[in-house]
């Protein structure tokens, strides 16, 4: 099949929204399909959002593709007789974040009208799709609530999961994730200061801004944790990630209200490490079940510290939860065969 993968992207920013496209392209090619990846440059700018959407809608793909799969908004508005949307999130500031401090525009008549127009355009575009998928239950629920449509949950796998290795359960809680305020690595450092065991913490990942990294370093210094926490603020190569997880005690991932369970959770599970997360992390509990294949606690440093200590003191528990996390991947059907067969159905 000739397949076009179309997504939007801010130039020169690499992240999960790109990986899902590039990885799917590789998996489709491996299965004998002809694939073209098209990233359209877009700006995260509320004022020009509708014009950008109209431009995407006016794009013409001729008869080059038997099927087109879209990902990040507003790519879902493109027109193709055989369009499949794998919808990974809304423009959230106009949806669920409207009534929060993340809303970047005033709540006035102009922007309320823009919001309504956007929602209507999104609904119409998603309705045009021959098949509609989301990357998590959280996003499927939002599509239902705001657009009145049913999206089938199709969990995105990681690339070449067989690369991950599982060794002994060491002394270090690992977090491989971009260092950003909403990923809340500061909560993990604060938790470390309240532990009673010598458990260690490793935070690795690149950051968009230096400020947050500096504040993490400052917090570690202030809490006198510099010998127990490693802050590796840079792009982490895949093999480094595999090595860090191989001997970790567990993985920690405590973002604020993420759309999906997140690649860090899945990568840890492939390495047979459980994930420690928090109850307000959004989609993470879709994967992590407390006491079954991971730990879910209140978003408080004390509660996280207690979880760190519990796993440090009981390596058998870390191993048991890690093995169950690995089983969870299969139970949720997070694999490329499932993804490809659903997207091409």
């Amino acid at each position, binding site marked *: 099949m*000739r397949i*076009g993968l179309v997504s939007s*992207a*801010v*130039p*020169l*920013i690499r992240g999960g929204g790109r990986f899902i496209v590039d990885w799917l392209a590789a998996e489709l090619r491996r299965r004998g399909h*002809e694939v*073209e990846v*098209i*990233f*359209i*440059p*877009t*700006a*995260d*700018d509320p004022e*020009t959002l509708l*014009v*950008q959407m*109209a*431009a995407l809608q*006016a*794009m*013409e*793909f*001729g008869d*080059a*593709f038997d099927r087109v799969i879209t990902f990040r908004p507003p790519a879902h508005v493109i027109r193709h007789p055989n369009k499949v949307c794998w919808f990974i999130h809304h423009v959230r500031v106009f949806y669920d974040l409207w009534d929060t401090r993340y809303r970047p525009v005033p709540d006035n008549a102009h922007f309320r009208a823009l919001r309504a127009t956007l929602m209507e355009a999104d609904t119409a575009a998603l309705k045009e799709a021959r098949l509609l998928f989301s990357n998590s239950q959280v996003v499927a629920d939002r599509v239902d609530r705001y657009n009145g449509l049913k999206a089938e949950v199709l969990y995105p796998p990681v690339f070449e999961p067989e690369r991950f290795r599982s060794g002994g359960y060491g002394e270090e809680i690992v977090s491989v994730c971009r260092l950003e305020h909403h990923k809340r690595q500061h909560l993990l450092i604060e938790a470390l200061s309240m532990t009673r065991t010598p458990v260690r913490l490793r935070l690795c990942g690149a950051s968009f801004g230096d400020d947050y990294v500096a504040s993490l370093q400052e917090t570690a210094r202030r809490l006198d944790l510099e010998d127990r926490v490693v802050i590796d603020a840079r792009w982490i190569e895949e093999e480094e990630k595999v090595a860090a997880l191989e001997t970790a005690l567990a993985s920690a991932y405590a973002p604020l209200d993420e759309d999906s369970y997140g690649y860090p959770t899945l990568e840890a599970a492939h390495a047979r490490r459980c994930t420690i997360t928090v109850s307000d992390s959004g989609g993470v509990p879709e994967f992590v079940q407390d006491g079954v294949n991971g730990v879910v606690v209140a978003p408080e440093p004390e509660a996280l510290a207690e979880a760190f200590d519990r796993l440090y003191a009981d390596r058998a528990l870390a191993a048991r939860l890690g093995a169950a996390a690995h089983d969870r991947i299969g139970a949720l059907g997070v694999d490329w065969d499932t993804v490809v067969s659903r997207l091409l159905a």
Partner: protein
Amino acid sequence: MKVLVLTTRVPFIHGGAEELRDHLVANLIRHGVDAEAMSIPFTWNPAERLLDEMWVARSIHVTNADRVIALKFPAYLVPHHNKVLWVLHQYRQAYDLWDAGQSNIPDTPRGLEIRQMITGADDRAFAEAQAVYAGSPVSQQRLRRYNGLEVPVLPAPLNDPELFTGGPMDGYIFAGGRVGNAKRQKLLVRALQHAPGVRLVIAGPPESPGEADELRRLAAELGVESRVTLDLRFLTRPELATLVNNATAGVYIPFDEDSVGYVTMEAFQAGKPVITTTDSGGVLEIVKHEETGLVAEPTPEALGAAFRALSIPAKAASLGKAAQQLLEARELTWPATIARLLS
């Protein structure tokens, strides 16, 4: 510094323009800047569609890039405050192909309006750019003639100069490139008659399947078949480089070529002089008689004399060295090209 390379694409087509785009990005990264390419889809039928395409390009918003390098219509219409155009393709059906009667734009009042919209949008894009470069002398002439714009040519450099290291002279003259009438390999075979003892190696993809037989028959007729080696197929880059590196000199005699030609640049990079002819067009920009090679009349006799002259190793070596230096001096290298595009 962050650089976005913008161009257009036709799905599943991968040709010279796509190769150039990819090498441009690779060389930008090698230069130490953060770079990537994005290619927007482009369709042009029916002609009315061209207006939508231009509107789409004008409506795209680019952020997080300090500079945009745009290569083709209509991608170079995308607005950006710091945009450099390296014009590989205008929409030729609104320009020279229109004049030649080979356009999909109808010759009607409406067609003329569409054409006016295209040339007008181009003019505006050129005016708002920080700099405009033409990808070839032909593009340069087109911009001059139709858009009244005087811009420098920035030719596409050799993509893999590291392969062309030079090497021992094995005593043959090498004729690379596509094999067919426009490249006049038959004339090379005839020239051998007038160059006793000189060996010629012709290697490259044939334009038609009969090409090899014709050349072989001609060589046999002229009694030079023992001195001609034919390898008519698509050679891998390392295979090609080996043939260039071990030659004593190169020969390249296309008729009225647009550009200096990759064949010429490959030979020069390897420190080999090139024999060309007085009617070879763009090749003459860098092949200078008795400086970086020899320029002969397009006759078997004159070419035969040139073959004999460049079969003398000392002579070939000294012209070859000058040829290699000229590539550097003319900035026909990726580092120099990147520096121009970022200046």
